């Protein structure tokens, strides 16, 4: 095998991070475009321009989400089981919001009727705005701890309610996430459009960039001052067979920032979030949209990386039974499965990046009103 078990556990923590970041960068930019759709496109042709900037790509991008889910299932089965069943209604809300995307993209242009098309515009808005919002809220709740426990057979029980998830801190995290995705989508939209749409996207870029900086800072201060973190106080054997009931966990003020004291280089992650956002705003405002897109992608690495690194080694802390919290050490798959999944990722991920890049290259260039008129029957 390529790595020993403790190393593989860390590698898979990083890989899940890579998949989440990949999802946020790729599916994120078309979700951002969906969120902005009703506001930056004033008439039907303009809206079709907006939709067709992501038309050929949204489907491939959505697979980042599906593969991320599959990878969590395979690498962290207990996290997948506990989070999806515990966040039942939140997950269904994400799912049902996502329903609007495939049909919204594909069916909207098939009938030329204003009400029909307006309906799908708002469908695409919901499909773009709701998932990032809920994922942000879910992340926020991870910092607060989620009320769940296990019985002796490791059956997970969630004892909270859906409404308890919508607390102020988690909602703030939801705004961070939505701002980040919409900011990123606005930059992509600037890159692929011109004229009035590009001008409106530029305004959105500036607004959501500022909102991202403000809410990310606010969440950081809140986390530092107002929220007790989690810490393992029993000895940890990283190579042990996973058993989430074999440790002692306490809540401690400031524990979520303790990783940065232990590993000062970790500060690079929040720094990247700030630098990426500021540089992306600067570049995009100056019209250099492609490097701006790279910068906002790095900002996403920074934001998600900050969240993950602060939680480490926790993945899903439990507020009602802290000892049952799920960590990278004790909620993972077997050594063999992690190893096989690593090989599959190492083989296929570069190939995916290559052909996705090719697809963008083929479709590169501005989407214009003329393009829509010439492709009346074929375009979205």
């Amino acid at each position, binding site marked *: 095998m390529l790595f020993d078990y403790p190393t593989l556990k860390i590698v898979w923590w990083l890989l899940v991070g890579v998949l989440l970041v990949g999802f946020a960068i790729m599916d994120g930019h078309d979700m951002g475009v969906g969120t902005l759709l009703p506001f930056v496109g004033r008439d039907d042709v303009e809206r079709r321009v907006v939709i067709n900037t992501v038309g050929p790509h949204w*489907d491939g991008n959505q697979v980042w989400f599906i593969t991320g889910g599959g990878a969590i299932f395979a690498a962290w089965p207990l996290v997948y089981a506990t989070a999806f069943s515990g966040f039942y209604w939140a997950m269904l809300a994400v799912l049902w919001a996502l329903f609007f995307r495939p049909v919204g993209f594909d069916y909207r242009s098939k009938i030329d009727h204003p009400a029909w098309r307006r309906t799908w515009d708002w469908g695409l808005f919901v499909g773009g705005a709701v998932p990032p919002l809920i994922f942000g809220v879910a992340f926020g709740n991870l910092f607060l701890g989620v009320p769940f426990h296990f019985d002796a057979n490791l059956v997970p029980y969630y004892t909270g309610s859906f409404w308890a998830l919508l607390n102020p801190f988690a909602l703030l995290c939801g705004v961070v996430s939505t701002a980040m995705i919409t900011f990123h989508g606005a930059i992509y939209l600037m890159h692929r459009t011109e004229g009035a749409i590009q001008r409106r996207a530029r305004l959105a870029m500036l607004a959501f960039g500022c909102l991202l900086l403000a809410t990310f800072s606010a969440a950081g201060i809140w986390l530092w001052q107002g929220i007790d973190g989690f810490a393992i106080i029993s000895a940890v054997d990283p190579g042990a067979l996973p058993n989430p009931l074999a440790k002692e966990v306490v809540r401690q003020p400031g524990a979520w920032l303790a990783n940065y004291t232990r590993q000062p280089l970790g500060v690079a992650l929040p720094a990247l979030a700030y630098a990426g956002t500021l540089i992306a705003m600067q570049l995009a405002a100056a019209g250099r949209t492609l490097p701006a897109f790279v910068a906002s992608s790095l900002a996403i690495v920074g934001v998600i990386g900050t969240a993950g690194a602060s939680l480490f080694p926790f993945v899903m802390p439990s507020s009602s039974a802290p000892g049952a919290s799920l960590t990278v050490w004790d909620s993972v798959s077997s050594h063999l499965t992690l190893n096989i999944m690593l090989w599959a990722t190492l083989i296929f991920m570069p190939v995916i990046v290559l052909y996705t890049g090719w697809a963008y290259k083929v479709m590169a260039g501005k989407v214009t009103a003329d393009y829509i008129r010439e492709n009346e029957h074929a375009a979205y």
Partner: protein
Amino acid sequence: MPSEQLVDLSRLQFAVTAMYHFLFVPLTIGMTWILVIMESAWVMTGKTIYQDMTRFWGKLFGINFALGVTTGITMEFQFGTNWAYYSHYVGDIFGAPLAIEGLMAFFLESTFIGLFFFGWDRLSRRQHLLVTLLMAVGTNLSALWILIANGWMQNPVGAEFSYVTMRMEMVDFWAVLFNPDAQAKFVHTVSAGYTTGAMFVLAISSFYLLRGHDVEFAKKSFRIAAAFGFASICSVIVLGDESGYTVGEAQQTKLAAMEAMWETEPAPAPFNLIAIPNEAEMKNDFAIEIPWVMGLIGTRSLDRQIPGIREIREKNRERIVSGIEAVSALEALRRQPDDAAMQAEFEEHKADLGFGLLLKKYTADVRQATPAMIERAVADTVPRVAPMFWTFRLMVLFGFLMLALFGAALWYSVKGCFAGRRWLLRWALWMLPVPWLSCELGWFVAEYGRQPWTIYGVLPTHLSVSTLEVGSLYGSLAGFVGFYTLLLVVEMYLMIRFAKQGPGSLGTGRYANEIAHA
């Protein structure tokens, strides 16, 4: 212990969403190859009509594909949302093919489908054909990995239970990959998809021929569908038989229930062509038997016996009794993992652990199980016979009906006179729903026939569910039914509208019904 109502609702929700998803999957699988064939004809002959065929049938394919994607995400979510204990218990094995499906297949399919629709003016002919081909390869690989996952539920090879992690763990990935059940299922299922695609094109082309518009377009489409469909339906039937053989090896209960075989007949066993199964008395009230046939299908031999339901139940009773020891030893080991005597005890009965867990439906402490409880658990081990028997026969009947239709369609298209055979065209049009019905019946046989297990012989269905409130299930089920009904109405409206309008919807100026599109 999950309530029976929770288990039933979870099953119902999964069945509804899975069968709904499978309304769209087979057509996608089949249409991808038909599009490859049509576009190859374009690249080879340079005739524009073949490009128009690729684009028009591609348009209908796209309407269908959108709902396939929409409803597919539900499936991935649902293992976690509604089958949490299942996800924990077997995620180590079951999760891997799902994740690899995403990496290897779904990315490929979904990335290239975008270029299929939007790359016509930006790619050379050969490049575009390559895109269509990769889309088809992605779609079919996707089916492969999903069926490897499903095949493992039917025949859980290459895995061991660990009492420390309290779950099944993978010990042999290649065994999971080359699981005979998965391979047999894959070829049977994709062939069924190809047949569905062929029927779709055949029926709609017949409609144009009956109406007398876009005749040349329809004739070319009809010929391709007839040839592709005939090959596919032959493959469905031959490989379905192979699938039956594999089932006989791995899941004796499913085979016995499908065939209403209550007694172990002397080899080679007869085949019940028609029977009226009587569940209470465990016999058939009436049966028309064909001698030898069952023995040949089920064992490929004249001398090996196929166990009947009564015999299977007796064996399962022994396994349940042994399983009680396994569950007790496991519970002791969960408290005292180092107890060597208990470890030995557990190892001895480990193979029957799943059978012991069947009793959890009736009692939390299986050691307290009464003989009546054991009797009920024994009865549970065989799915109800009548639904299995009849759905299977209906599926096979539909299969042979399609064989006849595609045979006739191919015969007359080789002779070149199909366009005037109105009875043939009408027959083809009326047969349009049949492949969908067969596919759904096939899934019913495969999945209902696996009961009472989610993982055959390993994990009972009633332990697999998430510990949700029953009210949540009513809410989500209502949500799914509402959404899915709405989506189906919209999809069918668009599909019928564009299928009726025909290639005129491309707006090329070469076909009838151009005005209908505003």
